């Protein structure tokens, strides 16, 4: 819809149009995230988390990548510092996303601070796309946020409750589901030379450290080695 049409139909309350646009944009994302949430809850419960703990983690952390990483190497008692460091590394991309989006949102500082609790790859990507044509309003953002957040929290809770009936995760290959999921996610970053070097170095170092030193050191050392490899492999004067 063009800006002129927006003004012509201004008798329709703006916020209602914005909410509708947010719901329309986020719907396919929510459908795709539903089984992922079920899977997360099921494997989390297989790893020994209670449904209440799964609800709290999904509702408060609300970051798939970091939650998957935490569950993949979950041990009792939970290694708090290791989890904090892995979470920081995985979510560091949010800083760039927030920096890029902030000039394009039409919200007060306080509203933005609340809104960014719901910052996800998906909501960010959709908002950046919308920002090419018009500012991102609070109504648009929160319509997406509420749907994604309830979808994620509910689906992982249902997964956790159903998961406790599934029994041994190895029998149905569920223990491998995260590995497969992560491989799928990594493929989303493309096949550029720098990415391939990053993946190879990170995988090699992590496997070696895990074999000779042990968990949880493989995560930080593998990740840092991969990042260093990307720095070295990238052309010195890469544009953008």
């Amino acid at each position, binding site marked *: 819809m063009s800006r002129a049409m927006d003004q012509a139909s201004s008798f329709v309350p703006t916020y209602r149009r914005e909410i509708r646009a947010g719901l329309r944009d986020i719907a396919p994302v929510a459908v795709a995230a539903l089984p992922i949430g079920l899977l997360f809850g099921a494997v989390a419960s297989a790893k020994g988390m209670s449904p209440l703990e799964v609800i709290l983690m999904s509702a408060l952390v609300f970051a798939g990548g970091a939650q998957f990483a935490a569950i993949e190497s979950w041990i009792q008692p939970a290694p708090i510092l290791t989890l904090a460091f892995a979470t920081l590394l995985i979510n560091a991309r949010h800083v760039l996303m927030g920096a890029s989006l902030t000039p394009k949102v039409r919200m007060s500082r306080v509203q933005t601070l609340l809104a960014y609790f719901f910052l996800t790859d998906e909501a960010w990507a959709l908002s950046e796309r919308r920002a090419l044509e018009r500012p991102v309003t609070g109504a648009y953002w929160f319509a997406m946020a509420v749907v994604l957040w309830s979808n994620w929290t509910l689906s992982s809770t249902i997964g956790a409750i159903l998961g406790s009936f599934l029994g041994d995760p190895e029998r149905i290959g569920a223990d491998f589901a995260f590995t497969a999921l992560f491989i799928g996610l990594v493929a989303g970053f493309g096949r550029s030379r720098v990415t391939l070097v990053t993946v190879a170095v990170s995988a090699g170092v992590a496997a070696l450290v*895990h074999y000779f030193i042990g968990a949880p050191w493989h995560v930080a050392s593998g990740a840092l080695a991969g990042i260093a490899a990307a720095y070295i492999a990238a052309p010195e004067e890469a544009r953008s």
Partner: protein
Amino acid sequence: MSLDTTTLLAILTMAVVTYFTRIAGLFVADRLVLTGRAKAAFDAIPPAVLVAVIAPTALTTGWAEAIAAAITAVAAFRLPLLGTVAVGVIAVVALRNLI
């Protein structure tokens, strides 16, 4: 329903760290312009972390897991995310029965 104290602390720590990364961009919006190698290194963070997490399971658990991981990687460039997961899980169950 049980709630372990250490688990609760871990969840809260993860929540605080995540929220910090989400709002940090708000305060550096005018200053953070990465270029060249620094940008490449920053962009490499998500794949580097994801790979490091799964490398032991994929590479050093056994042949079934290693072969299944290779099959999954091939599928990952052709299928949507859920299809990739399905291929990986089916492959690992089949290979564990064969090997």
